[in-house]
């Protein structure tokens, strides 16, 4: 067997070299507290500022709009609870989609228990929401709209850039939050153009370390913080900054320079792969044609996800079923997208990074063919 083939990049990614180097530097030499006013502290603060600048540039935001957190889940939680609490006097209605990541969905459930009204927009077969449904729901009592940019299971892309206009048209005070964890580094993102007030991104999905992420908060937007402490990150996320993780995050982000080119290349890769995959009897593609090409969800009818994943894993090919965050449950995203149980139970998600190659996908396809022959006999 050749080198392992890792195709589960939406779960997490391996650390890139420059992030590794940066983390080592931060641990060995730049370990001071960035809040200290002596020289060591100033150097650490410089690194923190640099990291903030890099992340800001990657999404065309201002530096003072970037708040470091421990990752996507915390960013989503701070955004949702922070906004809901801040605006609760203006209304209690929140709109989200029915296929959000658990860190959004479960936060919404908690808000429902606190008396908020949560509207979950249906997703179509392609996994994304319809902007008309959203327009129909927005009103003057709507205080928050949270819609993910790219669905983690299907790769569907939501029309996030239209939400702002819908909000303006309806003269709603609603803040717009976007969980862009799966889109960051893969789609060109400009916060202005996207029209969001709050946006979550994460380090470990872009070849950075675990334990770092960021929340974009548009200048002028105020939200409450659920975290109390020493006032770091302008009081939004207190606690001494996780410098190695944050700077590693920025180093990894800095490496992503050719988003458009990578996207083009990956689209080609995906198209080739899907075309060949469809030739196999019993394979149906669940991801839409317009989905982010980095995520391909398909079902090998008749073979449940788990044995397929195990079979491939034994051959050092790593893919996933649903999202890694919802082990054991039938994927609500796929249910909501209207897929049959048979398709859901045999769903496989291949998620790429910019480093994956055509050869790797060819090997995957061959192995799926082998699995089909062998596994049905069991």
């Amino acid at each position, binding site marked *: 067997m050749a080198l392992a083939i890792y195709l589960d990049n939406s779960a997490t990614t391996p650390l890139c070299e420059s992030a590794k180097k940066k983390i080592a530097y931060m641990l060995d030499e730049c370990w001071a507290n960035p809040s200290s006013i002596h020289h060591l502290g100033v150097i650490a603060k410089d690194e923190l500022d640099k990291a903030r600048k890099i992340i800001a540039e990657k999404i*065309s935001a201002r530096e003072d709009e970037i708040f470091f957190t421990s990752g996507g889940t915390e960013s989503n939680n701070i955004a949702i609870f922070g906004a809901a609490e801040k605006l609760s006097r203006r209304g209690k209605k929140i709109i989200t989609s029915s296929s959000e990541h658990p860190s959004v969905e479960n936060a919404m459930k908690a808000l429902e228990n606190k008396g908020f009204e949560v509207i979950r927009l249906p997703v179509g077969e392609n996994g994304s929401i319809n902007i008309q449904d959203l327009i129909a729901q927005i009103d003057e009592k709507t205080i928050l709209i949270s819609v993910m940019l790219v669905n983690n299971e299907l790769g569907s892309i939501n029309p996030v850039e239209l939400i702002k*206009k819908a909000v303006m048209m309806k003269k709603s005070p609603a803040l717009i939050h976007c969980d862009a964890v799966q889109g960051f580094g893969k789609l060109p993102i400009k916060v202005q153009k996207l029209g969001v007030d709050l946006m979550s991104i994460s380090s470990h999905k872009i070849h950075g370390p675990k334990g770092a992420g960021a929340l974009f908060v548009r200048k002028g937007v105020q939200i409450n913080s659920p975290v109390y402490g020493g006032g770091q990150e302008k009081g939004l996320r207190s606690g001494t900054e996780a410098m190695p993780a944050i700077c590693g995050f920025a180093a990894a982000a800095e490496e992503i320079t050719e988003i458009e080119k990578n996207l083009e290349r990956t689209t080609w890769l995906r198209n080739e792969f899907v075309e060949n995959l469809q030739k196999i009897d019993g394979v149906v593609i669940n991801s839409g044609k317009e989905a982010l090409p980095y995520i391909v969800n398909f079902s090998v009818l008749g073979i449940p996800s788990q044995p397929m994943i195990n079979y491939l894993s034994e051959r050092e090919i790593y893919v996933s079923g649903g999202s890694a965050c919802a082990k054991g449950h039938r994927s609500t995203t796929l249910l909501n997208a209207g897929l049959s149980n048979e398709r859901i139970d045999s769903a496989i998600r291949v998620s790429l990074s910019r480093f994956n190659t055509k050869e790797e996908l060819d090997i995957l396809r061959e192995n799926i063919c082998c699995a089909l022959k062998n596994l049905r006999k069991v």
Partner: protein
Amino acid sequence: MKEIILIKNGELALKGLNRRTFEDMMIKNMRRRFEHIGKFTFKASQSTIMVESEDENADFDTAFEAAKKVFGIAGLSRAAATEKDIEKIKEVAAEYLADELMFAKTFKVNAKRSDKNFPLKSPEICMEVGGFLLEKFPNLTVDVHEPDIIVTVEVRDTHVYIHGNQHKGAGGMPVGSAGKAALLISGGIDSPVAGWMMAKRGLRLMGIHFAAPPYTSELAEKKVHELTRKVAAYSGRIKLYVVEFTKIQETIKDKCPEELFTIIMRRIMMKTAEKIARREDCEALITGESLGQVASQTMKALACTDRAVDMPVFRPCIGMDKGEIVKISREIDSFETSILPYEDCCTVFTPKHPKTRPSVEEVEKAESAVDFTEMIEEAVRSARFILID
């Protein structure tokens, strides 16, 4: 679709025969500002500057934001360029402005036909395009007085340009057109605003900051770098001098009357700044002083500081209230940095009861107790500089 930025220059149009010179200067400033964004070309024609790019993926978003901060520009818009064909014009208008039209309630079409060979007259273009858009976007109605969106169709020599609402530019005169001056920048709210105001009137800026380590910290100086950066976003690159002022301040403290400490310090600062300014071909000093704001900014105190130098001192904030200054500092985004709580050298050794009505004679006499010449020379010699973009 080919996209361009259309730039309308403001006051420049009034400059008669000198207009070209001013325009060229503005284009030069823009070119420098756009360098790191991508490859752009600039073409001036019919009181408009057209910014284009050969590169299909050119970052027009960033370029447009940068252009909003270039002085000399009154208004600007992003436009789609298309062929001189009415069918094409209609299509492109509907497609290029779809996002805005979809959510607008009212609109009107405005046509400008500078190419008189185009078969349709302006009102006819308006009718055609307006009719087409009405049909395509059922949410729209026409309002010629206060429309949400004005769709402008400009028929020019080679292309037709279509754009939505025009954005306001930074105004003023191109940086450099009025010469070069040195800004005394402290770390407070006023001096960045003063620098911005004078850059807006066409001055190229140089910065001079006085530091007093160990009384002032590394962080305080960094704050000044950051403030300079905020101003440079509008003025273009600023060469910032950092002058070490500790020894001079300690000497004044030891040798001069306490109530005159601040005023004498201000005078020595001005003298030092003048020397650096002259060396760098600056023809004036700029300060953020505002009449009566503090003891050293009373009319009598300002008379004393003025006498220290032989160079015009521009104080654009002189007649402004704090609130007005704060408003500008928020607009140019320097406010949040200005209020970071670091000490600055003007507040080290501040006397308890500074003299608010010092006379020039009394100050000059007190100052003559020490010969500052050599210390000033040394401060100028040892000043470091950094370039801030």
